[in-house]
């Protein structure tokens, strides 16, 4: 099998807006995404990891990863998420080059 170039978009933001972010991801045509619980520190605050009592759980962080085949779709997701949410909510987004095994899995063509 050969490996195929693809892009991995990563979004780290507040759990509270997870649903909205996933909707954008799906609307942009991605075939899936992976979510991981996260904590962290950024310009706004220290966000705790989810092991101690989070009186307001929605304010924890999540890390969302999306593999897409083309850079355009990657940029589209990043810009929409940042545009819609990052003025009022904590969050960062970046993209990395990856190589995938079975490109058909990430096709929505």
């Amino acid at each position, binding site marked *: 099998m050969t490996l195929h170039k693809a892009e991995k978009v990563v979004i780290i933001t507040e759990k509270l807006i997870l649903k909205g972010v996933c909707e954008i991801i799906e609307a942009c045509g991605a075939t899936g995404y992976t979510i991981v619980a996260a904590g962290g520190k950024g310009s706004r605050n220290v966000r705790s990891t989810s092991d101690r009592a989070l009186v*307001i759980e929605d304010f924890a962080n999540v890390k969302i990863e999306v593999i897409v085949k083309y850079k355009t779709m990657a940029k589209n997701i990043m810009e929409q998420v940042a545009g819609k949410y990052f003025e009022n909510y904590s969050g960062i987004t970046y993209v990395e080059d990856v190589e995938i095994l079975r490109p058909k899995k990430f096709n929505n063509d």
Partner: protein
Amino acid sequence: MDFLFDFLTSIFVQFQSPTLGFLIGGMVIAALGSNLKIPNSIYQFIVFMLLMKIGIKGGIEIRGADLSAMFLPAVSTVIIGITIVLIGSFVFSLLPGIKREDGIATAGIFGAVSASTLAAAMVLLEEEAIFYEAWVPALYPFMDIPALILAIVLANIHLKKQNEGKDSKVDVWGIVKESLRGSALSALILGLSLGLLTNSESVLESFYEPLFRGFLSVLLLVMGMEAYARLNELRRVAYLYAVYAFIAPIMHGLMAFGIGYIAHVTVDFSPGGVILLSVMAASSSDISGPPTLRGAIPSANPSAYIGSSTSVGTPIAIAVCIPLFIALAKVVFDL
């Protein structure tokens, strides 16, 4: 004089009550940098248990209750919640250096209700053997939801005025639905339904009731630690928030006491019920209100309303208001 003495005695007793002790203990160990932590899943389960207990017990009582006796108190809770938000928004609009939507959101949080404060009051009433109708605590959504919705509507009207162009209508029904679907109200309503429709006395008495007091102690510990942790947030915003958070619970509680007194006279609402109504008014939402507001008024600064509520409002409500209203009731109702 007598009242003052009663009140001071009551405060003194309250300071020895483990309920308050756990709250203060949590603040102190957080301030000392302790690494003690209550696991998140335990905390979530405790909140679930307390609300189920309130719900089931309320539901069982409603089964046999005179619905007409509930009507006035229920309407009162709605009115109190709305009044608090209106007054708060107005007060903040007069204060300097407060962003309009931050003030409205804070007023909304103080109109809403803290389940942990309410539970603490219930335990104290039981310790003092002051009777209350078991359905009273279950009224809390009647204060909570209207207050939050009103705050969201007010904030959106304000924001709409600001940027004329974008017309964003407020989806009131959407907010109500989201509130009811939240974990806190879901648990309460589930408990209410089970209490109403099933013979749930056995499970209430063997499980939810005996564990109530102990779980509350753990919850108050968490609240105390959280109160300290959130002080930082308060420091970032205008000190007037702290002033409001200090005074408002007492004012709101006293107003509710008055309204409750009317219900006492007219429909024989119990003194314990009047106290609980006052405590609901005095309390400010710490669990379910903040994410609701954060979602619905994204541009409001959460440090303002969370800091005020968690770090000042809740401790004041528990440490000052509960004993104050109990002492007041003893005098007024001659208990």
